[in-house]
C-alpha cells in the first residue's frame, strides 16, 4: 500500500516537473541550445541484452532502408572511412575495444538502427533503449564523427561485407 502511494506521488511530481520544464522552456526564447547537448540519464537498469538481436530502428533520419546485394565498391569506400573515423574505437572482430566489436552487428541490429547510430549518436544514447544500455556498458559515448548520410551508407555496406565473410 505504502509503496504504491509513493510510486503514484512520484509520478505526479515527475509529471509536474515535466510540465514545469515545458513552461520554462516555452517562455525562454533564449539562445541557449541545451536540447542538443547530450546529457545521458543514469538509467542503467534496463533489462536489455546488448548482445542479442533487437528490432529497434533507433532514432534519426533512417526509417526504412531496403537492402540490395552487397556493393563491393561501396564497401571498399566504406572501409576507408571506417579506418579514419571508426577504427580507433571499433574493431571489425568480436573484440570489445572502446566500443563494441562490430563482427555480427548487421545481424544483431536493423540497418536503420546502425545508420542512425552512426549519424545521430547523441540523440540515440539519450533516447534509444539499446543505445542507452550500450552507453552504460561502454561508459564512453559513441562519438559523433560528423559522418554524412552517404558516408554512413558506405560504412554500413562495409559492415555487411564484414559479416558475410
Amino acid at each position, binding site marked *: 500500500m505504502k509503496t504504491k502511494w509513493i510510486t503514484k506521488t512520484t509520478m505526479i511530481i515527475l509529471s509536474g516537473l515535466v510540465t514545469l520544464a515545458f*513552461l520554462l522552456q516555452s517562455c525562454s526564447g533564449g539562445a*541557449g541550445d541545451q536540447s542538443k547537448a547530450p546529457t545521458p540519464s543514469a538509467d542503467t537498469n534496463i533489462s536489455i541484452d546488448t548482445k542479442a538481436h533487437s528490432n529497434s530502428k533507433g532514432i534519426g533520419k533512417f526509417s526504412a532502408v531496403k537492402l540490395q546485394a552487397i556493393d563491393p565498391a561501396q564497401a571498399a569506400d566504406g572501409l576507408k572511412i571506417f579506418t579514419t573515423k571508426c577504427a580507433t574505437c571499433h574493431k571489425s572482430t568480436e573484440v570489445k575495444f572502446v566500443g563494441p566489436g562490430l563482427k555480427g552487428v548487421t545481424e544483431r541490429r536493423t540497418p536503420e538502427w546502425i545508420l542512425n547510430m552512426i549519424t545521430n549518436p547523441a540523440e540515440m544514447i539519450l533516447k534509444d533503449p539499446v543505445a542507452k544500455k550500450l552507453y552504460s556498458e561502454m561508459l564512453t559515448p559513441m562519438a559523433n564523427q*560528423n559522418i554524412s548520410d552517404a558516408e554512413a551508407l558506405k560504412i554500413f555496406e562495409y559492415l555487411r561485407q564484414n559479416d558475410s565473410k
Partner: protein
Amino acid sequence: MKTVRLILLSLLVASMAAGTLSSCKPKKVGSVMAGDAASKVYVAPGKYDDFYLFTSGGFSGQLGVYGLPSGRLFRNIPVFSQDAQSGWGYSEETKPMFNTSHGFVPWDDSHHPELSKTNGEDDGRWIFINGNNTPRIARIDLSTFRTVDIIELPNAGGNHASPFCTENTEYVVGNSRFSIPMEGKGDVPITTFKENFKGAATFVKVDKESGNMSVAFQIIVPGFNYDLAHAGKGVSRDWMFFSTYNSEQAHNLLEVNASQNDKDFVMAINWKKAEEMIAQGKGKKIPASFMHNTYSEKTHSATSTEMKEVTVLYAEEVPEIIYYIPCPKSPHGCDVSPDGKYIVASGKLAATIPVFSFEKLLKAIEDKSYEGNVGGVNVLKYDAVLAGEVPQTGLGPLHTEFDDKGFAYTSFFVSSEIVKWDLEKRVVVDRAPTYYSIGHLCVPGGDTRKPSGKYVIALNKITKDRYLPTGPELTQSAQLFDISGDKMQLLLDFPTIGEPHYAQAIPAEKIVKNSKKFFKIEENTNPFVAKSEAEAKVTRTGKRVDVYMTMIRSHINPDNIEGIKVGDEVYFHITNLEQDWDIPHGFAVKGANTSELLIMPGETQTLKWLPIKVGMFPYYCTDFCSALHQEMQGYARVSPAGSATPLIFSGGATAVAEEVKK
C-alpha cells in the same frame, strides 16, 4: 496521508506558477524592474548572453572574451603572449607567429581591440588588436577565435595609435607613440630628437576576402607622440584622424616638458588620396625588415615571412593630404560621431572637450585657414575647424563613444566618471562615478555608424576596496551601466584579465552563426598528420625521432615507445581524430621544457621534447575527455646515448590484435 499529498500537490502548483512568472519577461522591464540591477544582468544557467565583449589584455598581451550583460568570462584568446595552457607559442606549429625582426618575442602589451567593419558597422568577421611594445597588429578570426595573422610595423616605436579601421576595413592603421629615427638611422644622440625622430602613420591593407594583412604604405610624419586614432565614416569616410601630444618634441621629463604648449594636435589624413598617390607610383620604396606571420587552419601551422621593403610618403612632400588641427593640451582619444560629422578629441590635461566639425575642416582646407606650419604640415586655425566646446565637463577627459540617440559618453580619468552629453547641443546631461580611474569606455558598436543604446562599459585602472583583496596585486575591472534611460544606471562590476584598455562589444548573433565546431580531418594537410590509427608510427632520422600520434576517446596511439635515446630530438605530432564539438585532447610528457598541447578535433599539433635523462617517461591526456580519460596514457623509454635499444612502439589497436591471436 491525504494532507501530505495535498500539500505536495499545492507546492507543485505554486512552484509551477513561480516558474511561469520568472521565465516570461514582462514587456516593460524598466517600469517593473526599475532599480533592480540584478535582474538586468542575470542570464539564467544555460542561457546565452546578448553581446560578446572583447577586452584588451593590456600587459597580458591577450584578448579577453566576455558575455554581456552577465560579465561572464568565456575565453582568454592567446595573441601576443605564449600560452602554456594551449601550447600557443610553444608548439612547433605556432612558434612562427612570434617571429619578429628582433627574433622570437614571447610577449607584448595589447591595447585596442577593433572589430572589422562593413559599411561602417561591425561585421563579426575578425577582430584586430595592436601590440604596443614591439610594434605589431594581430588579426583574430572570429569563426575560430584564433589569432591567424600578425604583422610587424617597420619604422615604428610604441604602436599605440592602432589598429583602428576604415569603414569597410580597407585599412587598419598604426602609428608611433614613441617616435624613433627611421630604420638604419637609429644610432644618433638623443639630443637630435627634433631632427632625427619621426612618426610613421602606417596603413595596413586588409584583403577583403581572406583578411590577409600587408603594409600598404607609411606616411612619415613629424616626430610627436601619436596616441590614438579613428577613421571617419559616412561623409568623412576618406579620412583618418590621429591624436598627438608632445608637439614640443621633448625627450626628457615629459611629464613637464611635453605639457608646455597650450595646444597639441589632431592629425587628419586623407587616406583615399594617399592611396591614389601610391597607385600613381608617388610612394618611395625604402629598405626595411619586418615579419609577416600567418596561421593556416588547413596545415594547422604558421608561416613567417620577412618583408624587405616598405613604400613611404613623406608628410612634407604631400601637404595636400595631411593637416594638423590644434587641440587643447595633450589630446588622448580621437573619436568620430556615428554620422561622421564630428571629431571629438579629449585633451587629457584640458577642462573642455573640443568638438571639431568635418564640414568646417573641409572649408578651412579650402580657404587655407592656416595658423602655421609644422614639419612641412599645415596647421589649421582652431576656430576655423571647431564646432564648439563642451564646457565644465570634468577632469582628465580621455575617450568618447556614442549611442543611437545623439548622446556622447566621455570617460574622465582624473575625476573618475563617465559624462553623458548632447552631441549637437554640447551640454552635459548626466554623469556617473566609476570605481576607479576609468580609462577607455565602450558602447556596443560605439565607434560604428550604428551604435547600440543599451550599455556603456567602463574600463577601470584601479579597483582598491571593490573586491576581496588578493595581496598587493589587485584585479582590474569593468563596470556595466544601463544607458537605455535618461540616467546611466550602474548594473555590475566584473574583474578582467590584465589591464583592459579599450574594449569592443557586438551583438552575439553576428558571431554565433559563424562559430566553427571542429576542423575536418579530411582537410588536414599538416605534413605530420596521422589521419587514422593505421598511420600512427615512429620514425628515426639520425637524432631526430618523429612520433605520428593519434588521440581519440579513450586512447593514445602509439601508447608505448622504446628506443629513444638521451640527446635525441623527439617531435610528438599529435592528431586529434575526433570530429565532434567540444572534444579537445591535451598532451603532456614528463620533463618537457615547453608546455602541454591542447589539440582541437581534427587538428595536428607538435611538441618538441629533448630527453636529457635515462628512464621511463609517462605521457597522458590532460583534458578530461571521457570516462576512460584516466586510461589515456603511455610511456616513452629513454635509453643512454649510443645504446642499441631498437625503436619499437605499440598502440591500442596493436595490443588488441595480439590478444586476438592468442
